[in-house]
Protein backbone atom coordinates (compact mmCIF):
# COMPACT_ATOMS: atom_id res chain seq x y z
CA UNK A 1 0.00 0.00 0.00
CA UNK A 2 1.20 3.49 -0.79
CA UNK A 3 2.45 5.70 2.06
CA UNK A 4 0.72 8.82 0.78
CA UNK A 5 -2.51 8.67 -1.16
CA UNK A 6 -4.03 11.86 -2.54
CA UNK A 7 -7.44 11.31 -4.07
CA UNK A 8 -9.26 13.95 -6.11
CA UNK A 9 -7.95 16.93 -4.15
CA UNK A 10 -9.08 20.37 -5.30
CA UNK A 11 -8.42 23.79 -3.85
CA UNK A 12 -9.46 27.19 -5.15
CA UNK A 13 -8.40 30.68 -3.99
CA UNK A 14 -11.05 33.02 -5.35
CA UNK A 15 -10.74 32.86 -9.12
CA UNK A 16 -7.48 30.88 -9.23
CA UNK A 17 -7.36 27.12 -9.05
CA UNK A 18 -4.35 25.94 -7.07
CA UNK A 19 -5.23 22.26 -7.29
CA UNK A 20 -7.73 20.70 -9.70
CA UNK A 21 -8.70 17.11 -8.97
CA UNK A 22 -5.17 16.01 -8.12
CA UNK A 23 -4.67 12.31 -7.48
CA UNK A 24 -1.28 10.97 -6.59
CA UNK A 25 0.22 8.11 -4.67
CA UNK A 26 3.72 7.88 -3.22
CA UNK A 27 5.36 4.61 -2.27
CA UNK A 28 7.19 4.29 1.03
CA UNK A 29 10.91 5.06 0.70
CA UNK A 30 10.55 7.09 -2.48
CA UNK A 31 12.33 10.35 -3.20
CA UNK A 32 9.44 12.08 -4.92
CA UNK A 33 9.61 15.44 -6.67
CA UNK A 34 6.70 17.75 -7.47
CA UNK A 35 7.92 19.86 -10.37
CA UNK A 36 6.27 22.85 -11.93
CA UNK A 37 6.60 26.56 -12.70
CA UNK A 38 5.86 29.02 -9.92
CA UNK A 39 2.14 29.42 -9.34
CA UNK A 40 1.31 25.93 -10.62
CA UNK A 41 -0.09 24.89 -7.24
CA UNK A 42 2.70 22.59 -6.08
CA UNK A 43 3.32 24.50 -2.86
CA UNK A 44 -0.40 24.58 -2.10
CA UNK A 45 -0.51 20.80 -2.55
CA UNK A 46 2.43 20.45 -0.14
CA UNK A 47 0.74 22.73 2.38
CA UNK A 48 -2.43 20.65 2.16
CA UNK A 49 -0.40 17.52 2.96
CA UNK A 50 1.23 19.32 5.92
CA UNK A 51 -2.18 20.57 7.10
CA UNK A 52 -1.77 24.33 6.60
CA UNK A 53 -4.45 24.38 3.92
CA UNK A 54 -7.66 22.40 3.76
CA UNK A 55 -8.75 20.96 0.41
CA UNK A 56 -12.17 22.04 -0.90
CA UNK A 57 -12.73 18.43 -1.87
CA UNK A 58 -10.86 15.15 -1.98
CA UNK A 59 -8.97 13.08 0.57
CA UNK A 60 -5.40 12.89 1.82
CA UNK A 61 -4.44 9.54 3.36
CA UNK A 62 -1.09 9.00 5.04
CA UNK A 63 -0.12 5.43 5.96
CA UNK A 64 -3.74 4.31 5.86
CA UNK A 65 -5.06 7.16 8.04
CA UNK A 66 -7.29 9.83 6.52
CA UNK A 67 -5.66 13.09 7.70
CA UNK A 68 -7.73 15.47 5.55
CA UNK A 69 -9.35 17.12 8.57
CA UNK A 70 -6.45 16.82 11.01
CA UNK A 71 -4.49 19.88 12.22
CA UNK A 72 -0.76 20.07 11.33
CA UNK A 73 0.39 19.00 14.82
CA UNK A 74 -1.54 15.73 14.59
CA UNK A 75 -0.04 14.57 11.27
CA UNK A 76 2.89 12.14 10.96
CA UNK A 77 4.68 14.47 8.54
CA UNK A 78 7.26 17.18 9.01
CA UNK A 79 8.16 19.98 6.69
CA UNK A 80 11.33 21.80 5.82
CA UNK A 81 10.30 25.36 5.01
CA UNK A 82 11.66 27.31 2.08
CA UNK A 83 12.60 30.15 4.44
CA UNK A 84 13.82 27.47 6.91
CA UNK A 85 11.65 29.12 9.62
CA UNK A 86 14.22 28.49 12.34
CA UNK A 87 13.22 29.87 15.74
CA UNK A 88 15.48 32.91 16.21
CA UNK A 89 15.22 32.85 20.02
CA UNK A 90 16.54 29.29 20.31
CA UNK A 91 19.97 27.90 19.56
CA UNK A 92 20.55 25.09 17.06
CA UNK A 93 20.02 22.36 19.67
CA UNK A 94 16.83 24.07 20.89
CA UNK A 95 15.50 24.20 17.34
CA UNK A 96 16.18 20.53 16.70
CA UNK A 97 14.77 19.54 20.10
CA UNK A 98 11.56 21.58 19.70
CA UNK A 99 9.56 18.82 18.05
CA UNK A 100 10.90 16.17 20.43
CA UNK A 101 9.92 18.23 23.47
CA UNK A 102 6.34 18.32 22.16
CA UNK A 103 6.35 14.52 22.40
CA UNK A 104 7.42 14.77 26.07
CA UNK A 105 10.50 12.67 25.32
CA UNK A 106 12.87 12.61 28.31
CA UNK A 107 15.90 14.90 28.39
CA UNK A 108 18.55 12.22 27.86
CA UNK A 109 16.85 10.85 24.78
CA UNK A 110 16.33 14.33 23.39
CA UNK A 111 20.02 15.19 23.88
CA UNK A 112 21.06 11.94 22.21
CA UNK A 113 18.73 12.49 19.25
CA UNK A 114 19.93 16.08 18.83
CA UNK A 115 23.53 14.84 18.71
CA UNK A 116 22.57 12.18 16.20
CA UNK A 117 20.84 14.74 13.97
CA UNK A 118 23.75 17.19 14.18
CA UNK A 119 26.07 14.38 13.10
CA UNK A 120 23.74 13.44 10.25
CA UNK A 121 23.90 16.94 8.75
CA UNK A 122 27.57 17.42 9.73
CA UNK A 123 26.90 20.26 12.12
CA UNK A 124 28.54 18.88 15.28
CA UNK A 125 29.90 21.67 17.39
CA UNK A 126 27.22 24.13 16.34
CA UNK A 127 24.64 23.13 18.96
CA UNK A 128 24.90 26.36 20.95
CA UNK A 129 24.86 28.75 17.97
CA UNK A 130 21.87 30.95 17.24
CA UNK A 131 20.39 30.87 13.70
CA UNK A 132 21.58 34.43 12.96
CA UNK A 133 25.15 33.28 13.60
CA UNK A 134 24.97 30.67 10.83
CA UNK A 135 25.50 30.89 7.07
CA UNK A 136 22.68 30.10 4.64
CA UNK A 137 23.99 26.59 4.01
CA UNK A 138 24.31 25.88 7.74
CA UNK A 139 20.77 27.12 8.37
CA UNK A 140 19.55 24.80 5.64
CA UNK A 141 21.19 21.86 7.43
CA UNK A 142 19.69 22.81 10.77
CA UNK A 143 16.26 23.10 9.16
CA UNK A 144 16.70 19.63 7.69
CA UNK A 145 17.89 18.21 11.03
CA UNK A 146 14.92 19.77 12.83
CA UNK A 147 12.44 18.33 10.33
CA UNK A 148 14.05 14.86 10.52
CA UNK A 149 14.44 14.78 14.32
CA UNK A 150 10.95 13.37 14.89
CA UNK A 151 11.52 10.62 12.33
CA UNK A 152 8.37 11.43 10.38
CA UNK A 153 6.87 8.94 7.97
CA UNK A 154 6.99 11.56 5.27
CA UNK A 155 9.27 14.58 4.99
CA UNK A 156 8.02 17.53 2.95
CA UNK A 157 10.68 19.84 1.50
CA UNK A 158 9.55 23.16 0.05
CA UNK A 159 12.19 24.37 -2.44
CA UNK A 160 14.94 23.07 -0.14
CA UNK A 161 17.83 24.36 -2.24
CA UNK A 162 16.35 27.59 -3.63
CA UNK A 163 18.11 29.86 -1.14
CA UNK A 164 21.59 28.40 -1.72
CA UNK A 165 24.14 29.55 -4.26
CA UNK A 166 24.79 27.40 -7.32
CA UNK A 167 27.84 25.47 -6.18
CA UNK A 168 26.45 24.73 -2.74
CA UNK A 169 23.20 23.65 -4.38
CA UNK A 170 24.92 20.93 -6.38
CA UNK A 171 26.74 19.60 -3.28
CA UNK A 172 23.65 19.73 -1.10
CA UNK A 173 21.67 17.85 -3.73
CA UNK A 174 24.01 14.87 -3.36
CA UNK A 175 23.92 15.15 0.43
CA UNK A 176 20.14 15.15 0.45
CA UNK A 177 20.12 11.93 -1.55
CA UNK A 178 22.66 10.39 0.85
CA UNK A 179 20.70 11.43 3.93
CA UNK A 180 17.45 10.16 2.46
CA UNK A 181 19.03 6.76 1.79
CA UNK A 182 20.49 6.60 5.30
CA UNK A 183 17.32 7.52 7.25
CA UNK A 184 14.98 5.70 4.87
CA UNK A 185 12.28 8.34 5.23
CA UNK A 186 10.06 9.11 2.25
CA UNK A 187 10.91 12.55 0.83
CA UNK A 188 8.50 14.76 -1.09
CA UNK A 189 10.32 17.72 -2.63
CA UNK A 190 8.63 20.68 -4.25
CA UNK A 191 10.80 22.46 -6.81
CA UNK A 192 10.60 24.63 -9.89
CA UNK A 193 14.12 23.55 -10.93
CA UNK A 194 13.89 20.65 -13.42
CA UNK A 195 17.58 19.79 -13.02
CA UNK A 196 17.05 19.45 -9.27
CA UNK A 197 14.01 17.23 -9.71
CA UNK A 198 15.62 14.98 -12.32
CA UNK A 199 18.88 14.54 -10.44
CA UNK A 200 17.44 13.82 -6.97
CA UNK A 201 14.12 12.12 -7.36
CA UNK A 202 13.24 8.51 -8.02
CA UNK A 203 9.87 9.69 -9.28
CA UNK A 204 8.79 13.04 -10.67
CA UNK A 205 5.30 14.53 -10.95
CA UNK A 206 4.93 17.56 -13.22
CA UNK A 207 2.23 20.11 -12.39
CA UNK A 208 0.77 22.83 -14.57
CA UNK A 209 -1.97 25.26 -13.52
CA UNK A 210 -3.20 23.10 -10.67
CA UNK A 211 -3.21 19.87 -12.66
CA UNK A 212 -0.91 16.90 -12.51
CA UNK A 213 0.19 16.48 -16.13
CA UNK A 214 2.66 13.58 -15.94
CA UNK A 215 4.23 11.30 -13.38
CA UNK A 216 7.08 8.90 -13.89
CA UNK A 217 10.75 8.17 -13.42
CA UNK A 218 13.09 11.08 -14.33
CA UNK A 219 14.25 9.40 -17.57
CA UNK A 220 10.65 8.73 -18.56
CA UNK A 221 9.69 12.39 -17.97
CA UNK A 222 12.66 13.62 -19.98
CA UNK A 223 12.75 11.06 -22.79
CA UNK A 224 9.01 10.46 -23.16
CA UNK A 225 7.24 13.72 -22.26
CA UNK A 226 3.45 13.35 -22.46
CA UNK A 227 2.66 16.87 -23.59
CA UNK A 228 4.11 19.98 -25.18
CA UNK A 229 4.15 21.60 -21.72
CA UNK A 230 6.24 18.83 -20.15
CA UNK A 231 8.59 18.67 -23.15
CA UNK A 232 9.15 22.42 -22.96
CA UNK A 233 9.33 22.77 -19.19
CA UNK A 234 11.60 19.83 -18.46
CA UNK A 235 14.75 20.59 -20.38
CA UNK A 236 15.35 22.17 -23.78
CA UNK A 237 13.47 20.93 -26.82
CA UNK A 238 12.99 21.45 -30.58
CA UNK A 239 9.27 21.41 -31.19
CA UNK A 240 7.86 20.97 -34.71
CA UNK A 241 4.15 21.73 -35.06
CA UNK A 242 2.35 20.26 -38.04
CA UNK A 243 -0.19 17.88 -39.49
CA UNK A 244 0.04 14.09 -39.77
CA UNK A 245 0.34 12.77 -43.29
CA UNK A 246 1.07 9.40 -44.79
CA UNK A 247 4.76 9.14 -45.61
CA UNK A 248 6.98 6.55 -47.13
CA UNK A 249 5.93 3.34 -45.29
CA UNK A 250 5.44 5.32 -42.05
CA UNK A 251 3.55 8.36 -40.76
CA UNK A 252 5.11 11.77 -41.32
CA UNK A 253 4.61 15.30 -40.05
CA UNK A 254 4.06 18.06 -42.56
CA UNK A 255 5.43 21.28 -41.09
CA UNK A 256 4.71 24.64 -42.68
CA UNK A 257 7.92 26.19 -43.98
CA UNK A 258 9.79 22.90 -44.11
CA UNK A 259 10.26 21.55 -47.62
CA UNK A 260 9.56 17.88 -46.90
CA UNK A 261 7.54 16.04 -44.27
CA UNK A 262 9.43 14.77 -41.22
CA UNK A 263 9.24 10.98 -40.89
CA UNK A 264 7.94 9.92 -37.46
CA UNK A 265 9.13 7.05 -35.24
CA UNK A 266 7.76 3.69 -36.28
CA UNK A 267 4.75 2.49 -34.34
CA UNK A 268 3.10 5.92 -34.17
CA UNK A 269 -0.62 5.17 -34.02
CA UNK A 270 -2.48 8.34 -34.94
CA UNK A 271 -5.08 9.22 -37.57
CA UNK A 272 -3.94 11.04 -40.70
CA UNK A 273 -4.79 14.73 -40.82
CA UNK A 274 -4.58 15.22 -37.06
CA UNK A 275 -2.56 18.11 -35.63
CA UNK A 276 0.50 16.99 -33.69
CA UNK A 277 3.94 18.09 -32.59
CA UNK A 278 7.28 16.37 -32.73
CA UNK A 279 9.70 16.97 -29.87
CA UNK A 280 13.42 16.37 -30.39
CA UNK A 281 15.95 17.08 -27.61
CA UNK A 282 18.93 19.24 -28.69
CA UNK A 283 21.46 16.54 -27.77
CA UNK A 284 19.77 14.12 -30.21
CA UNK A 285 20.53 16.40 -33.15
CA UNK A 286 23.45 15.42 -35.36
CA UNK A 287 25.15 18.12 -37.47
CA UNK A 288 27.13 17.45 -40.64
CA UNK A 289 28.58 19.44 -43.51
CA UNK A 290 27.46 16.96 -46.12
CA UNK A 291 23.87 15.85 -46.57
CA UNK A 292 23.41 12.52 -44.75
CA UNK A 293 21.39 9.60 -46.04
CA UNK A 294 17.75 9.84 -45.07
CA UNK A 295 15.88 12.82 -43.63
CA UNK A 296 17.79 15.97 -42.76
CA UNK A 297 17.07 19.69 -42.48
CA UNK A 298 19.29 22.25 -44.18
CA UNK A 299 20.10 25.21 -41.97
CA UNK A 300 22.73 27.82 -41.14
CA UNK A 301 24.51 28.24 -37.81
CA UNK A 302 23.26 31.54 -36.32
CA UNK A 303 25.09 31.50 -32.99
CA UNK A 304 27.08 29.26 -30.67
CA UNK A 305 26.91 29.28 -26.88
CA UNK A 306 29.91 27.67 -25.19
CA UNK A 307 28.92 26.06 -21.88
CA UNK A 308 32.21 24.44 -20.84
CA UNK A 309 31.12 20.82 -21.02
CA UNK A 310 29.70 21.35 -24.47
CA UNK A 311 28.13 23.94 -26.74
CA UNK A 312 24.61 24.84 -27.72
CA UNK A 313 24.45 25.59 -31.45
CA UNK A 314 21.54 27.71 -32.68
CA UNK A 315 20.45 27.08 -36.25
CA UNK A 316 18.00 28.76 -38.59
CA UNK A 317 16.51 27.33 -41.77
CA UNK A 318 16.03 29.46 -44.84
CA UNK A 319 12.35 29.81 -43.95
CA UNK A 320 13.27 31.06 -40.46
CA UNK A 321 12.59 27.95 -38.39
CA UNK A 322 14.93 28.00 -35.37
CA UNK A 323 16.63 24.84 -34.11
CA UNK A 324 19.08 24.16 -31.35
CA UNK A 325 21.61 21.36 -31.09
CA UNK A 326 23.75 20.41 -28.11
CA UNK A 327 27.19 19.14 -29.03
CA UNK A 328 29.35 17.70 -26.25
CA UNK A 329 32.96 18.71 -25.60
CA UNK A 330 34.50 20.59 -28.52
CA UNK A 331 32.36 18.89 -31.19
CA UNK A 332 30.95 22.29 -32.20
CA UNK A 333 34.42 23.40 -33.41
CA UNK A 334 33.90 22.78 -37.16
CA UNK A 335 30.53 24.61 -37.16
CA UNK A 336 31.39 28.31 -37.02
CA UNK A 337 28.83 31.05 -37.34
CA UNK A 338 27.29 31.23 -40.81
CA UNK A 339 28.27 27.66 -41.72
CA UNK A 340 25.61 25.82 -43.77
CA UNK A 341 24.90 22.49 -42.09
CA UNK A 342 22.58 19.51 -42.25
CA UNK A 343 20.70 18.67 -39.05
CA UNK A 344 19.34 15.17 -38.56
CA UNK A 345 18.42 12.81 -35.74
CA UNK A 346 17.68 9.11 -35.29
CA UNK A 347 13.95 8.84 -36.05
CA UNK A 348 13.25 6.95 -32.79
CA UNK A 349 14.61 9.94 -30.78
CA UNK A 350 11.60 12.07 -31.68
CA UNK A 351 8.47 12.08 -29.51
CA UNK A 352 5.07 12.69 -31.07
CA UNK A 353 2.82 14.87 -28.93
CA UNK A 354 -0.86 15.56 -29.38
CA UNK A 355 -1.51 17.35 -26.09
Amino acid at each position, binding site marked *: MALLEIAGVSRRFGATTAAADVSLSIESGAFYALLGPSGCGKTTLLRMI*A*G*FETPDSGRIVIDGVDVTGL*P*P*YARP*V*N*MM*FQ*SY*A*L*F*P*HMDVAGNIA*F*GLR*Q*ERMDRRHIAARVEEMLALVQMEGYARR*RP*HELSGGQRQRVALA*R*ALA*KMPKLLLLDEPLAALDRKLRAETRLELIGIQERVGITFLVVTHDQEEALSMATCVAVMDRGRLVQTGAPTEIYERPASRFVAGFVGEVNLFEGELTAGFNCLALTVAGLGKPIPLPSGTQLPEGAAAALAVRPEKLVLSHAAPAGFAIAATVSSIGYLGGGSIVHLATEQGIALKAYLPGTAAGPFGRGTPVWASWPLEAGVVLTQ
Partner: protein
Amino acid sequence: MTGLGRLGRLVVIGVPFLWLALFFLLPLLIVVKISLAESTIGIPPYTPLFVNDGSGLKLHATLANFALIAGDDLYLRAYLGSLGNAAVATALCLLVGYPVAYAIARSQGVRRQLLLFLIMLPFWTSFLIRVYAWIAILEPNGLLNQALIALGLIATPLPLLNNLFSVQLGLVYSYLPFMILPLYGSLSGLDQSLIEAAADLGARPLQTFLGVTLPLTLPGIAAGCLLVLIPAIGEFVIPDLLGGPDTLMIGKVLWDEFFNNRDWPVAAAVAVVLVAALALPLLAAQRFLERGHTA
Protein backbone atom coordinates in the same frame (compact mmCIF):
# COMPACT_ATOMS: atom_id res chain seq x y z
CA MET B 1 34.13 60.85 2.68
CA THR B 2 30.88 61.63 0.94
CA GLY B 3 27.56 63.13 1.96
CA LEU B 4 27.24 65.49 4.85
CA GLY B 5 30.85 65.89 5.89
CA ARG B 6 32.06 66.69 9.38
CA LEU B 7 30.16 69.91 9.95
CA GLY B 8 26.95 68.48 8.55
CA ARG B 9 27.08 65.48 10.83
CA LEU B 10 27.85 67.70 13.80
CA VAL B 11 24.74 69.75 13.06
CA VAL B 12 22.52 66.68 12.56
CA ILE B 13 23.64 65.11 15.83
CA GLY B 14 24.11 68.39 17.66
CA VAL B 15 20.66 69.90 17.19
CA PRO B 16 18.70 67.16 19.01
CA PHE B 17 21.33 67.10 21.74
CA LEU B 18 21.08 70.85 22.13
CA TRP B 19 17.30 70.54 22.27
CA LEU B 20 17.48 67.88 24.98
CA ALA B 21 20.06 69.89 26.94
CA LEU B 22 17.98 73.07 26.78
CA PHE B 23 14.52 71.70 27.39
CA PHE B 24 15.14 68.52 29.37
CA LEU B 25 18.45 68.59 31.20
CA LEU B 26 18.36 72.28 32.14
CA PRO B 27 14.84 72.18 33.67
CA LEU B 28 15.80 69.00 35.51
CA LEU B 29 18.87 70.72 36.94
CA ILE B 30 16.71 73.67 38.01
CA VAL B 31 14.39 71.25 39.82
CA VAL B 32 17.40 69.61 41.52
CA LYS B 33 18.61 73.06 42.51
CA ILE B 34 15.25 73.98 44.04
CA SER B 35 15.14 70.66 45.92
CA LEU B 36 18.35 71.68 47.72
CA ALA B 37 16.97 75.06 48.78
CA GLU B 38 14.85 76.20 51.72
CA SER B 39 11.33 77.49 51.49
CA THR B 40 10.86 81.24 52.06
CA ILE B 41 8.05 83.69 51.62
CA GLY B 42 8.81 85.71 48.54
CA ILE B 43 9.28 85.48 44.81
CA PRO B 44 10.67 82.97 44.03
CA PRO B 45 9.51 81.10 47.14
CA TYR B 46 12.87 79.44 47.86
CA THR B 47 16.37 80.51 48.88
CA PRO B 48 19.13 80.90 46.28
CA LEU B 49 21.72 78.14 45.97
CA PHE B 50 24.69 80.54 46.03
CA VAL B 51 24.79 83.47 48.46
CA ASN B 52 27.17 86.41 48.15
CA ASP B 53 27.99 87.45 51.73
CA GLY B 54 30.70 89.93 50.77
CA SER B 55 33.61 87.50 50.98
CA GLY B 56 32.62 85.67 47.76
CA LEU B 57 30.00 83.15 46.60
CA LYS B 58 28.99 80.59 49.21
CA LEU B 59 27.10 77.37 48.58
CA HIS B 60 23.86 77.33 50.49
CA ALA B 61 22.42 73.82 50.04
CA THR B 62 20.42 71.56 52.35
CA LEU B 63 19.24 67.99 52.24
CA ALA B 64 16.47 68.80 54.74
CA ASN B 65 13.76 68.33 52.07
CA PHE B 66 14.96 64.81 51.31
CA ALA B 67 15.16 64.11 55.05
CA LEU B 68 11.56 65.27 55.38
CA ILE B 69 10.45 62.93 52.58
CA ALA B 70 12.34 60.05 54.18
CA GLY B 71 10.97 60.87 57.61
CA ASP B 72 7.26 61.16 56.82
CA ASP B 73 5.77 57.84 55.71
CA LEU B 74 3.07 59.70 53.76
CA TYR B 75 5.56 60.06 50.92
CA LEU B 76 6.65 56.45 51.02
CA ARG B 77 3.02 55.31 51.01
CA ALA B 78 2.32 57.65 48.11
CA TYR B 79 5.29 56.32 46.13
CA LEU B 80 4.30 52.73 46.82
CA GLY B 81 0.64 53.50 46.13
CA SER B 82 1.59 54.97 42.75
CA LEU B 83 3.83 52.05 41.95
CA GLY B 84 1.17 49.53 42.99
CA ASN B 85 -1.62 51.22 41.06
CA ALA B 86 0.57 51.68 38.01
CA ALA B 87 1.76 48.06 38.15
CA VAL B 88 -1.79 46.70 38.39
CA ALA B 89 -2.89 48.99 35.55
CA THR B 90 0.07 47.83 33.44
CA ALA B 91 -0.78 44.19 34.05
CA LEU B 92 -4.43 44.81 33.15
CA CYS B 93 -3.42 46.72 30.02
CA LEU B 94 -1.22 43.77 28.99
CA LEU B 95 -4.00 41.26 29.61
CA VAL B 96 -6.52 43.28 27.62
CA GLY B 97 -4.09 44.67 25.06
CA TYR B 98 -2.37 41.46 23.96
CA PRO B 99 -5.46 39.73 22.51
CA VAL B 100 -6.53 43.00 20.88
CA ALA B 101 -3.09 43.53 19.31
CA TYR B 102 -3.07 39.88 18.23
CA ALA B 103 -6.44 40.21 16.53
CA ILE B 104 -5.37 43.39 14.72
CA ALA B 105 -2.07 41.85 13.60
CA ARG B 106 -3.95 38.83 12.23
CA SER B 107 -6.59 40.86 10.37
CA GLN B 108 -6.11 41.92 6.77
CA GLY B 109 -6.35 45.03 4.63
CA VAL B 110 -9.11 47.53 5.32
CA ARG B 111 -10.17 45.74 8.49
CA ARG B 112 -6.70 46.14 9.97
CA GLN B 113 -6.61 49.83 9.04
CA LEU B 114 -10.01 50.36 10.59
CA LEU B 115 -9.09 48.61 13.85
CA LEU B 116 -5.85 50.61 14.17
CA PHE B 117 -7.79 53.77 13.48
CA LEU B 118 -10.24 52.91 16.27
CA ILE B 119 -7.35 52.37 18.71
CA MET B 120 -5.99 55.82 17.94
CA LEU B 121 -9.37 57.55 17.76
CA PRO B 122 -9.47 58.59 21.48
CA PHE B 123 -6.34 60.71 20.97
CA TRP B 124 -8.42 63.06 18.87
CA THR B 125 -10.21 64.23 22.02
CA SER B 126 -8.55 65.96 24.96
CA PHE B 127 -7.34 63.58 27.64
CA LEU B 128 -8.93 65.78 30.34
CA ILE B 129 -12.33 65.74 28.65
CA ARG B 130 -12.23 61.95 28.33
CA VAL B 131 -11.47 61.58 32.04
CA TYR B 132 -14.31 63.99 32.87
CA ALA B 133 -16.59 61.88 30.69
CA TRP B 134 -15.87 58.91 32.95
CA ILE B 135 -17.15 60.95 35.92
CA ALA B 136 -20.43 61.43 34.08
CA ILE B 137 -20.60 57.71 33.43
CA LEU B 138 -19.56 56.46 36.87
CA GLU B 139 -21.09 58.95 39.34
CA PRO B 140 -23.94 57.74 41.63
CA ASN B 141 -26.62 59.14 39.31
CA GLY B 142 -24.45 58.77 36.25
CA LEU B 143 -25.16 56.92 33.03
CA LEU B 144 -24.08 53.48 34.18
CA ASN B 145 -25.96 53.48 37.50
CA GLN B 146 -29.09 54.88 35.84
CA ALA B 147 -28.95 52.23 33.18
CA LEU B 148 -28.51 49.43 35.73
CA ILE B 149 -31.39 50.76 37.85
CA ALA B 150 -33.62 51.17 34.81
CA LEU B 151 -32.90 47.56 33.86
CA GLY B 152 -33.88 46.54 37.39
CA LEU B 153 -30.51 44.90 38.06
CA ILE B 154 -29.77 47.03 41.12
CA ALA B 155 -31.95 49.05 43.50
CA THR B 156 -29.46 51.59 44.81
CA PRO B 157 -26.55 53.15 42.89
CA LEU B 158 -23.22 51.29 43.05
CA PRO B 159 -20.22 53.21 44.42
CA LEU B 160 -18.29 53.35 41.13
CA LEU B 161 -16.52 56.69 41.48
CA ASN B 162 -13.74 58.03 43.71
CA ASN B 163 -12.29 54.68 44.65
CA LEU B 164 -9.60 52.26 43.46
CA PHE B 165 -11.95 50.82 40.84
CA SER B 166 -12.48 54.13 39.09
CA VAL B 167 -8.76 54.97 39.23
CA GLN B 168 -7.83 51.60 37.69
CA LEU B 169 -10.54 51.97 35.08
CA GLY B 170 -9.25 55.42 34.22
CA LEU B 171 -5.63 54.27 34.02
CA VAL B 172 -6.36 51.22 31.89
CA TYR B 173 -8.71 53.18 29.63
CA SER B 174 -6.22 56.01 29.12
CA TYR B 175 -3.05 53.99 28.65
CA LEU B 176 -4.34 50.94 26.74
CA PRO B 177 -3.37 52.34 23.30
CA PHE B 178 0.23 52.74 24.51
CA MET B 179 0.24 49.02 25.27
CA ILE B 180 -1.56 47.91 22.10
CA LEU B 181 0.54 49.80 19.57
CA PRO B 182 4.00 48.38 20.44
CA LEU B 183 2.46 44.92 20.87
CA TYR B 184 0.83 45.26 17.46
CA GLY B 185 4.18 46.25 15.97
CA SER B 186 5.84 43.23 17.52
CA LEU B 187 3.08 40.79 16.54
CA SER B 188 2.66 42.01 12.97
CA GLY B 189 6.39 41.61 12.42
CA LEU B 190 6.26 37.99 13.57
CA ASP B 191 7.10 35.60 10.72
CA GLN B 192 4.00 33.48 10.16
CA SER B 193 6.09 30.55 8.99
CA LEU B 194 7.53 30.26 12.52
CA ILE B 195 4.02 29.62 13.84
CA GLU B 196 3.47 27.07 11.09
CA ALA B 197 6.83 25.43 11.83
CA ALA B 198 5.87 25.05 15.49
CA ALA B 199 2.54 23.46 14.57
CA ASP B 200 4.29 21.22 12.04
CA LEU B 201 6.65 20.01 14.76
CA GLY B 202 3.71 18.93 16.89
CA ALA B 203 3.04 21.98 19.06
CA ARG B 204 -0.60 22.62 19.91
CA PRO B 205 -1.85 26.23 19.70
CA LEU B 206 -1.19 26.96 23.41
CA GLN B 207 2.30 25.44 23.26
CA THR B 208 3.04 27.42 20.10
CA PHE B 209 1.93 30.60 21.83
CA LEU B 210 4.03 29.97 24.95
CA GLY B 211 7.06 28.59 23.12
CA VAL B 212 7.23 30.83 20.06
CA THR B 213 4.81 33.77 19.91
CA LEU B 214 5.26 35.01 23.48
CA PRO B 215 9.08 34.89 23.64
CA LEU B 216 9.39 36.53 20.22
CA THR B 217 7.09 39.39 21.23
CA LEU B 218 8.86 40.07 24.57
CA PRO B 219 10.43 43.28 23.21
CA GLY B 220 6.94 44.55 22.35
CA ILE B 221 5.67 43.53 25.78
CA ALA B 222 8.56 45.31 27.48
CA ALA B 223 8.06 48.46 25.39
CA GLY B 224 4.31 48.49 26.03
CA CYS B 225 4.74 47.93 29.77
CA LEU B 226 7.22 50.80 30.04
CA LEU B 227 5.04 53.14 28.02
CA VAL B 228 2.17 52.43 30.43
CA LEU B 229 4.03 52.04 33.73
CA ILE B 230 6.18 55.18 33.64
CA PRO B 231 3.51 57.79 32.93
CA ALA B 232 1.00 55.92 35.11
CA ILE B 233 3.30 56.19 38.15
CA GLY B 234 3.48 59.96 37.84
CA GLU B 235 -0.18 60.31 36.83
CA PHE B 236 -1.96 63.21 38.48
CA VAL B 237 -5.18 63.89 36.58
CA ILE B 238 -6.73 60.42 36.94
CA PRO B 239 -6.27 60.02 40.73
CA ASP B 240 -7.29 63.65 41.21
CA LEU B 241 -10.53 63.40 39.22
CA LEU B 242 -11.49 59.75 39.62
CA GLY B 243 -9.69 58.87 42.88
CA GLY B 244 -10.86 59.11 46.45
CA PRO B 245 -9.37 59.17 49.94
CA ASP B 246 -7.96 55.64 49.57
CA THR B 247 -6.06 56.31 46.35
CA LEU B 248 -2.87 58.03 47.45
CA MET B 249 -0.62 58.64 44.45
CA ILE B 250 2.62 60.59 44.26
CA GLY B 251 1.51 62.83 41.40
CA LYS B 252 -1.25 64.22 43.56
CA VAL B 253 1.11 64.69 46.55
CA LEU B 254 3.49 66.59 44.29
CA TRP B 255 0.68 68.82 43.08
CA ASP B 256 -0.46 69.53 46.64
CA GLU B 257 3.07 70.46 47.75
CA PHE B 258 3.45 72.88 44.87
CA PHE B 259 0.06 74.51 44.70
CA ASN B 260 -1.56 74.02 48.11
CA ASN B 261 1.43 74.18 50.48
CA ARG B 262 3.45 76.35 48.10
CA ASP B 263 6.52 74.48 49.37
CA TRP B 264 8.54 74.35 46.16
CA PRO B 265 11.70 72.79 47.64
CA VAL B 266 9.82 69.79 49.10
CA ALA B 267 7.81 69.43 45.87
CA ALA B 268 11.06 69.54 43.88
CA ALA B 269 12.60 66.91 46.17
CA VAL B 270 9.56 64.66 45.62
CA ALA B 271 10.01 65.08 41.86
CA VAL B 272 13.75 64.35 42.00
CA VAL B 273 13.17 61.14 43.96
CA LEU B 274 10.45 60.12 41.47
CA VAL B 275 12.71 60.73 38.45
CA ALA B 276 15.56 58.80 40.09
CA ALA B 277 13.25 55.91 40.97
CA LEU B 278 11.91 55.76 37.39
CA ALA B 279 15.25 56.19 35.61
CA LEU B 280 16.74 52.98 36.99
CA PRO B 281 14.05 50.55 35.76
CA LEU B 282 13.94 52.50 32.49
CA LEU B 283 17.65 51.97 31.91
CA ALA B 284 17.35 48.31 32.83
CA ALA B 285 14.47 47.85 30.41
CA GLN B 286 16.33 49.74 27.68
CA ARG B 287 19.22 47.30 28.00
CA PHE B 288 16.79 44.40 27.75
CA LEU B 289 15.16 45.84 24.63
CA GLU B 290 18.51 46.34 22.93
CA ARG B 291 19.48 42.77 23.69
CA GLY B 292 16.17 41.64 22.22
CA HIS B 293 17.00 43.42 18.96
CA THR B 294 20.29 41.65 18.43
CA ALA B 295 18.89 38.20 19.26
